[in-house]
């Protein structure tokens, strides 16, 4: 983390005169959020936009486009003039939608500017279920396929994909029950309508601390900073890495020099200690990566998720 920050700072110092020399940006930047105001995508966007505005010295205006499960906003983003004055937040659902919707926005229609951070999935069970450990849960799911009710997003949503990746990797069958987002899923878990859920850690952390639910494992390569006492799946002998992520993108075709200015400014913002503290306090993991590394991460997710979608019969727009 510290090294990235150093690199970013160095890059920033190098970039500053460049930015002035070219006069980019010299006007307001529009930041597209493809979900309604108030959600995670919106909150993270506003956190970055405010600081990016200070970094670049121009206003960064957040605009929410709701509709078509996030596709409406992505279409605005991909269709914008590639002059660097329209950028926005990309989530894992947009990668999934490439294959599951009519008229999708494909990854190659976008220019990836930076990575924001992962939001790993976790497996949580209600406290009064008999599953004390991840191993007990996996054993039970194998013994009685389809008996364990697992609350998650509608097919194609992030927590549905997390559950599906877990099913495929561990060769077990859950009864996946769809809810419209994280809040209703957690409500159903607390109310006992489902036995388990695959939502990210921050959503269930407080209920876990209160003893109402048990987080059995985190689907990431490292433990979650908010819950350092909860082991990862891998630590418990199960190789499952899944979850949501966020990245900052613009329409494809942004001139190279402008894309670099934006990318460097974003990495600088995302690496600042003040920003990381604010984002962590709000429950968001930050992993500032430049354009190339970010694209590699997104492509890796793309490669991981496609077979899962195919397996679930969700692909309507094959590769």
């Amino acid at each position, binding site marked *: 983390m510290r090294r990235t920050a150093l690199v970013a700072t160095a890059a920033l110092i190098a970039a500053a005169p460049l930015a002035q020399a070219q006069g980019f940006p010299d006007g307001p930047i529009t930041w597209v959020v493809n979900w*309604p*105001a*108030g*959600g995670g995508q*919106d*909150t993270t966007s*506003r*956190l970055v936009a*405010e600081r990016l505005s200070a970094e670049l010295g121009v206003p960064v205006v957040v*605009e*929410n*486009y*709701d*509709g*078509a*499960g996030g*596709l*409406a906003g992505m*279409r*605005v983003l991909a269709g914008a003039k590639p002059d660097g004055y329209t950028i926005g937040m990309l989530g894992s659902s947009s990668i999934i939608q490439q294959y*599951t*919707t*009519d*008229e999708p926005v494909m990854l190659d229609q976008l220019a990836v500017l930076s990575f924001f951070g992962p939001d790993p999935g976790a497996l949580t069970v209600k406290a009064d279920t008999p599953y004390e450990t991840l191993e007990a849960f996996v054993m039970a799911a194998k013994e009685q396929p389809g008996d364990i*009710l697992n609350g998650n997003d*509608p*097919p*194609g*949503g992030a927590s549905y994909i997390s559950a599906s990746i877990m099913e495929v990797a561990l060769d077990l069958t859950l*009864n996946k*029950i*769809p*809810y*419209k987002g994280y*809040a*209703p899923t*957690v*409500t*159903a878990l*607390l*109310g*006992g*309508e*489902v036995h388990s859920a695959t939502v990210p850690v*921050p959503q269930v*952390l*407080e*209920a876990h*601390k*209160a003893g*109402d639910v048990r987080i059995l494992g985190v689907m990431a390569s490292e433990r979650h900073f908010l819950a350092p006492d909860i082991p990862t799946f891998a630590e418990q002998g199960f190789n499952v890495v899944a979850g949501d992520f966020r990245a900052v993108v613009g329409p494809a075709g942004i001139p190279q020099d402008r894309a670099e200015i934006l990318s460097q400014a974003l990495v600088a913002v995302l690496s600042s200690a003040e920003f990381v503290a*604010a984002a962590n*306090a*709000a*429950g968001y993991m930050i992993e500032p990566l430049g354009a190339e590394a970010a694209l590699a991460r997104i492509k890796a997710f793309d490669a991981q998720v496609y077979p899962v979608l195919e397996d679930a019969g*969700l692909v309507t727009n094959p590769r």
Partner: protein
Amino acid sequence: MSYLADALIGAVTDPAMLGLCLFGVVVGLVFGALPGVSSTMSLAVMLPLTFGMSTPAAMMLMLGVFFASVYAGSVSAILLNIPGTPGAMVTVLDGNAMARKGRAGEAMAYALIASLFGGVVGWLLLVGIAPVIAAYALRFGSPEYAAVVFFGLALVSYASSGDTLRGLAAGTIGLLLGVVGRDVVTDVPRFTFGTADLQGGFDIIPLAIGLFGVAEALSAMERAPRGGRVQAPTGRLMPKARTLIAELPAALRGSFIGTFIGAIPAAGSAVAVAVAYALEKRLSRTPERFGTGIPRGVVAPEAANNACVGGALIPMMTLGIPGDSITAVLIGVLLLHGLRPGPGLFENQPEFIATIYAALFIAIVLTGLVAGFIGLRVFNKVLLLPRRLLLTGVLMLCLLGAFSVRNSAFDIWVAVGSGAVGYGLIRLGVPILPLAFGVVLGPILEENLRRTLMIHGDWSVFLTRPISFTLVMISLLVLGGPLIVRALTTLAARRRT
């Protein structure tokens, strides 16, 4: 309790805190009165302002915006026949009918008083018995949810004016419109005709703006004499004390309904106002007067709508679950300040919980003062505008509001199209309300019904769980009641002969 007193005194004696809350209330009143600017959007716009504030200051500002904007939805509903939010959809019926009779001033006063009353009852229940209500809200699983929406639909079909057949037809059109878009259970797009615009389904706000606002503007052009004013002057402002007291039981019932339904995560104010209005109509000895412009038709839903604010805060404060999209933004504010609402915060930081309660109470009081002493007079002036100015302005606001909900040009066409449909329905004497509720409640009913069947396998679950059993039985009684009564009277008549 002493924490609460301390927090209240602390906030009231701090001019900066009061000033922030006042600012929030003014912003909320203006935004809420504009059709298409929802409470959620108002809060999100103010969100960046709170970054640099202390947490209590941020909550002061946000709760001011929250409560004032929820109340102000009634302004455009009464004066212009445009419900800016689903929660104000029922207020349109009697509120605008009163305005048309030249009683706009009174209707606005009733709405304000009922809103404040509902707000305070919701607040009292939040402060007093939040954990009890939260425990009850958690018992609402998918079957209960499906049953309560079925109950709401049954009550709406009963409550809508005019003949039942036309009401049912309108409701069915609404249910069909609600089917459009991605299906929540399977994520398969339905009736989208291959276009991306329809994948998200019809948003209720552009539809309601068209059905109520645009259609009303079109009919008003026809109705009002050339060059004159659209509506009679606003009339007296303050209702008589005696009539106010007569509305007290309705306000109380509405407030309880609002708080309890508001506390069920994601149930929302639309269900609460539908239930509150229909219940009053059912209890009334003169149900035929509902919809013609009677205070009770304004009081019950407005009390319910604003009691939802306290209700929605209940699961947020005790469980950390947002009660609706507005409280989701509030949770966002707390998270950005490093506070994670949930059982831990609720039990271990009573001082902080008390500051939130105090902030909401001050927001309610300030909304009452600002709206009562300034708002009512200013808002009512709108009706004094010449007809051509007012109607053009209304149409512009309608289209702007429809666009701003999702920043979508397609939604402008939805508003225009549903405006034409709404105008046609008015001419045909078909009630619009069941259609609007079909669109709002249909998808919720479908989602929960299908999930119930996925989890429990068969329909008997609705009869074996006490809450859903009760709700289904009452719904059936509401729907079948008149038939049973008629059957019994014919039977009795036959015996006698």
